[in-house]
């Protein structure tokens, strides 16, 4: 136990749960609030909106409940005010207007601050009283509902009881009870008294009548009177009623005999109808209850173990091949079949575990509407922001990796992408720009794209800036294609803090974005439509742990090329190369594409060189273009386990990661995009020198 600055007594585990849960609820609340705000008055008309309002109410309710249970006052007060306001909205008493969303969003911010302080075990920052007051002003005061049962005389009640159908043997008892005004929900205590009497008696009437109790407050000074007929055990009645919380005095009197009346309504019917509904709903929702939470660290360990199994499986397969070479063909065949089967199991195990690592991109995307809203408020730009494909699933480690790059790209879109409303209007465009974040799966990649309908990228300005920064000179500029120029955006040293505005942040350029994305074996591509907008597209691998690949031999070393980037393999002797310029050209599908050797990419090293003019050409596709890579031999395909290359060899363009071969050796995984880009950079450098 530790006592923090709030004087709240929590174990570390309790604190963590409290904080985590608060953060989750705040995220959820924020998400709905932004939808309300975006709908600008049209919210609340659809069923799913109602569900969202329920969610929002529940979030505030949970926050309040958790906070109140430990006497965390600032949070309790604020969440309570928010909950009241939300209740009004949910029940249709307060329209879900932008003002409501706004004050609630500000409250969410304050609650985040409170949560952060709680996480750090610090004293809560003060809650601005104005915020609570603002919410209270917007809330419709819950009408205090007094139950309006007629106060009936004992004679009326007795007559009612006597008018009942059944013949009554034995005496009638009068039960008089006082309910304390201090108890929680006195009306419910009264109801409990009535229900207890009802159970003990064959027939009963009461004042107030059961159905007249429908609010929280009991009038008539908390008096409840019941007349009961057909009592087996008056002492039991006394105990039961007396045991009910808040019951102050019980008086049981024996009365003269009377006649019955029929009592209570048929609640059972409605109850049954509701039951039918509920079980339908439970069928639909049963999937939720079948999920469990698993520690991320455990998932990572499982994945690593499976990865080791895959490596061993590959090793085993290659050992079995050698059995055959030793004249043990029968054994080799039999073992081969077994290993084949095991391989199948390993593969599906691997796929299943991979599946469990997938999370919808929404987990990340939900941060952005808020950020974009703030950007909109703090800039002169006017734009709409939409998100598509948030349900696309992605490995959770990638989710972490692309958060910062996306923030950067989105900020750029606001800052540099879209034009001021006046400029847009002058160009005949809608003054309100559109920024769209979308995600979708394309074969073995997940594409995440930020597109705007702004003015597009000005390649002349980019080239000019690159020259100013000394990244290129006039000569090389002349040789650059549009694509090359756009690529300069991602060059270290291109953006500097001077031209970076408040929105785009300080000193961090797109070079960092590219580095972060390439670190997880993804690529960044920019598409430009002058006058109509631009798009930054991240293409990310579906899995982070293995890749289908082709093994090739280059200069007596094995390299791995992901199948996703291979178009075709061709025998070198089967083609007729064109030697016009420095680079031999290969005829390919009606076009000519450049043919490179690995040493072209790494001019300073001779050990990457390929042997000679025999061998194969692997046609690689990068972004929109193809090129050939000369290799000495093709060694077959495999499912390669991806192992990261860490410092000090982390970021070599063209080499994304490594894998372990069945013989225990390391083989490098080539990155077709990176190689090609590096080659062009090298070529530019060579020209400059």
């Amino acid at each position: 136990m530790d006592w923090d600055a709030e004087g709240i007594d929590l174990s570390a585990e309790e604190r963590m749960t409290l904080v985590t849960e608060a953060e989750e609820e705040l995220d959820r609340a924020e998400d709905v609030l932004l939808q309300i705000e975006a709908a600008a008055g049209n919210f609340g008309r659809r069923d799913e909106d109602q569900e969202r309002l329920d969610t929002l109410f529940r979030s505030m309710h949970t926050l309040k409940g958790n906070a109140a249970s430990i006497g965390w006052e600032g949070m309790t007060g604020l969440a309570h005010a928010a909950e009241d306001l939300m209740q009004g909205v949910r029940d249709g008493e307060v329209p879900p207007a932008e003002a409501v969303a706004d004050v609630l969003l500000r409250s969410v911010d304050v609650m985040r601050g409170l949560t952060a302080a709680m996480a750090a075990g610090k004293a809560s920052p003060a809650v601005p009283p104005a915020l609570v007051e603002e919410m209270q002003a917007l809330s419709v005061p819950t009408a205090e509902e007094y139950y309006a049962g007629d106060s009936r005389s004992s004679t009326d009640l007795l007559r009612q009881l006597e008018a009942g159908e059944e013949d009554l043997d034995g005496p009638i008892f009068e039960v008089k009870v006082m309910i304390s005004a201090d108890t929680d929900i006195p009306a419910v205590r009264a109801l409990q008294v009535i229900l207890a009497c009802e159970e003990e008696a064959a027939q009963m009437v009461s004042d107030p009548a059961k159905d007249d109790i429908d609010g929280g407050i009991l009038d008539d000074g908390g008096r409840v009177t019941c007349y009961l007929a057909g009592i087996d055990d008056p002492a039991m009645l006394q105990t039961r009623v007396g045991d009910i919380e808040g019951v102050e005095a019980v008086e049981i009197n024996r009365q003269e005999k009377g006649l019955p009346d029929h009592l209570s309504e048929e609640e059972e019917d409605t109850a049954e109808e509701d039951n039918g509904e509920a079980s339908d709903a439970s069928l639909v929702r049963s999937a939720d209850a079948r999920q469990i939470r698993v520690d991320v660290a455990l998932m990572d360990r499982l994945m690593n173990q499976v990865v080791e199994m895959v490596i061993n499986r590959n090793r085993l397969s290659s050992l079995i091949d050698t059995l055959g070479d030793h004249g043990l063909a029968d054994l080799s065949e039999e073992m081969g079949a077994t290993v084949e089967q095991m391989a199948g199991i390993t593969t599906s195990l691997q796929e299943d575990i991979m599946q469990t690592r997938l999370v919808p991109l929404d987990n990340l995307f939900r941060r952005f509407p808020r950020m974009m809203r703030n950007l909109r408020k703090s800039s002169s730009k006017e734009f709409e922001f939409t998100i598509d494909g948030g349900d696309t699933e992605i490995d959770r480690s990638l989710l972490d990796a692309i958060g910062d790059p996306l923030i950067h790209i989105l900020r750029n879109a606001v800052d540099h992408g879209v034009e001021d409303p006046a400029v847009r209007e002058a160009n005949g465009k809608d003054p309100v720009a559109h920024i769209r974040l979308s995600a979708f799966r394309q074969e073995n990649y997940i594409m995440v794209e930020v597109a705007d309908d702004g003015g597009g990228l000005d390649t002349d300005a980019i080239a000019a800036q690159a020259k100013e920064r000394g990244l290129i000179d006039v000569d090389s500029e002349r040789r650059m294609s549009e694509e090359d120029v756009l690529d300069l955006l991602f060059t270290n040293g291109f953006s500097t803090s001077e031209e970076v505005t408040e929105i785009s942040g300080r000193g961090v350029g797109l070079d960092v974005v590219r580095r972060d994305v390439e670190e997880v074996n993804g690529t960044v591509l920019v598409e430009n439509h002058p006058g109509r907008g631009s798009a930054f597209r991240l293409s990310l691998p579906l899995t982070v742990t293995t890749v289908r690949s082709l093994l090739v031999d280059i200069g007596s070393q094995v390299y791995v090329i992901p199948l996703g980037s291979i178009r075709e393999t061709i025998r070198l002797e089967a083609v007729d190369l064109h030697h016009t310029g420095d680079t031999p050209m290969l005829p390919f599908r009606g076009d000519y594409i450049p043919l490179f050797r690995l040493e072209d990419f790494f001019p300073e090293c001779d050990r990457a060189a390929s042997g000679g003019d025999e061998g194969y050409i692997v046609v690689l596709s990068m972004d929109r273009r193809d090129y050939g890579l000369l290799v000495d031999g093709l060694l077959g395909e495999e499912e390669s386990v991806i192992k990261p290359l860490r410092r000090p060899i982390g970021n070599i363009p063209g080499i994304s990661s490594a894998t372990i071969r069945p013989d225990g050796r390391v083989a490098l995984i080539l990155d077709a995009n990176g190689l090609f880009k590096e080659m062009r950079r090298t070529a530019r450098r060579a020209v400059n020198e």
Partner: protein
Amino acid sequence: MSKILVVDDAEFMRMRYKKLLSGEGYEVLEAGNGQEAVQIYEKEGPDLVLMDITMPVMDGMEALKELISRDADARVIMSSALGQERVVLSAIKGGAKDFLVKPFKPDNVLATVKKHLA
């Protein structure tokens, strides 16, 4: 030893209840929503259910109906927040044995639990 099923979507609340009740020697089962509560009830047959009203998936009222329809004698205590008077009323009408009002008051919780397990 009596078994108590605590139903609350807030993990933190379950944690607090569990600490309190297991400290008194009760066996505590947990459910995060009404649906889980119904499943656990059927499987484990707890002696008492402490159930929150406001929950996702299946709220406390629905769950109460389910529990009572399966076991008319189910001892269910609803836990509610201020402002849920009407819901509590209908819970009691619907067969809940008692209720507790948040915020969590340990003495209150224990007294109520003991009363219904007596």
